[in-house]
């Protein structure tokens, strides 16, 4: 067991601790001397950086909900595909690829489809009269859903498979309607895993960098893009430490979301066990 814990200590814990400590280092722009200060934390919560946090949080919340709803619908539909065994296997493997392979290929697929020179762009704007830009929050949400829906399918499917048919039969035999079954039996059983999967989608969307970078460069206020910008900046003195403060902020936000999730989970599971 020791190698496992040691490995995590060096490659997971150490970087995070260093991040948390060095986020409080600042370089004096005049004397170039390093010192301790909370100035970075103040800087990253206001102005462009503050807007980036808000932008990222909004985008992640919206895409997480969209991904969760559509992914749940797809998962239920896939489970019911009685004849289509092949269909089911194809959907699941495709979901595995899209959810894990990363955002760069997806970004380029969408650039070719509804980007400036995209194949479908002309159809949408000229024929249907839609004004639409891929290089916006809406555009990013459309692309993010492309890997969040599959992620939802993969995460929620085991929970759906755990719904025992006998429960439905018992409910039916007792005269419950479909709605009543979902309201009093299926819904409460599924609520914790659905909430957990939605949190995972949120974290995944919040952390997404590749897609946004490949799609919009840095023209959209997102924390991940701001972090990368501040790391590559040679202009601003101490920008590197600002990037660390921004990253620390992300970790704290994700931690808060997870704490909230754990709290809800404990409340809902009290009567299930």
């Amino acid at each position, binding site marked *: *067991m020791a*190698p496992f814990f040691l490995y995590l200590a060096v490659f997971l814990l150490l970087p995070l601790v260093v991040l948390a400590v060095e986020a409080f280092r600042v370089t004096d722009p005049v004397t170039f001397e390093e010192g301790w200060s909370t100035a970075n934390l103040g800087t990253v919560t206001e102005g462009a950086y503050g807007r980036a946090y808000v932008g990222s949080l909004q985008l992640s919340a919206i895409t997480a909900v969209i991904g969760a709803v559509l992914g749940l619908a797809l998962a239920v539909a896939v*489970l019911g595909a009685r004849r289509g065994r092949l269909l089911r*296997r194809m959907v699941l493997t495709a979901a595995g690829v*899209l959810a894990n392979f990363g955002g760069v*290929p997806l970004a380029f697929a969408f650039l070719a489809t509804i980007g400036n020179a995209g*194949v479908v762009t002309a159809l949408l704007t000229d024929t249907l009269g839609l004004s639409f830009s891929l290089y916006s929050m809406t555009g990013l949400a459309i692309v993010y859903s492309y890997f969040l829906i599959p992620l939802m399918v993969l995460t929620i499917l085991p929970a759906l498979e755990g719904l025992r048919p006998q429960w439905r039969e018992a409910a039916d035999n007792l005269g419950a309607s479909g709605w009543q079954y979902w309201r009093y039996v299926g819904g409460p059983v599924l609520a914790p895993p659905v909430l957990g999967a939605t949190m995972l989608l949120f*974290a995944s969307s919040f*952390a997404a960098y590749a897609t946004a970078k490949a799609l919009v460069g840095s023209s959209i206020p997102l924390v991940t893009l701001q972090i990368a910008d501040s790391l590559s900046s040679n202009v601003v003195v101490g920008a590197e430490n600002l990037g660390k403060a921004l990253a620390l902020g*992300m970790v704290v936000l994700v931690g808060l979301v997870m704490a909230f999730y754990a709290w809800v989970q404990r409340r809902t599971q009290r009567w299930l066990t």
Partner: protein
Amino acid sequence: MTALAEGVAGAGGVAPDTPVRSGRRSRVAWRWIVFGALGLYFLVPIGASIWFTVRDRRGGGVTFEPYTQIPTAEGFAETFGRSLLLGALTVVIALALMVPTVLLVELRFPRLRTTVELLTLLPLVLPPIALVVGVRSVLAWAPDYFYGTPVAEFMFALQEPELPWILVLVYVVLALPFVYRALDAGVRGGQLRTLTEAARNLGASWPRTMFSVVLPVLRTSVLNAVFLTLALVLGEFTVANILGFQTFPTWIVLVSGAAPQLSVAVSVLSLLLTWALLLLISALDRRRGTKENA
């Protein structure tokens, strides 16, 4: 009336293999609407990308030039080869680290299960960009604090652009959730405790138990773990980009400016190939599974 019909239909099947029952027309229609709408959403970008790459802008008609020029494109062979090598190394280290861990948790330290489970889930919710900013800060210690010492030499060696070991070490962390879950599923489904106890009672040594009993049981889950890890490494962009290394995904982004059709062609091809490979593995897995059950 319908409730009664449902009850009868439900009682008819002793053990329906799908929890969500089919049969009612409205339900079937609803399912096909979902498949249709989402199918459109998922297929249109792939189809449009293929059209984007084979459409000949100058002469009109169809060309396969973007695909034929992939192998000889500048930087492709180098970065793709490097990504494959990084993937293989990540697989080896991740398995060497996690197979013993999962087995020890199952057989010797069941109390640690929750802790290990939580720790391996951490990389799933922790933003990789935050992790890599931390890694970058640690690496910056080499010139700042350790200059001229063996520690600095070692840290510089990790960052060799030809084969950046530091990427492998970080990728192992990122792959932990997938590797652990795949292996854990195999261990739980395989009744490993019973099997190892039987082997030990019959006089097998620990190494023999390991190689003749445990690893064959875990074959499928190891295969799953290997595949997920490879896919993760081949598609990983954030860590490589922030640490400034050239890998396959960073190369795609790099060439997109000068050769948009090429970058789209590579993207589509990599997605479809990965999918085909995964479909193949799942088909093999299925055939083996039915053979063993029969």
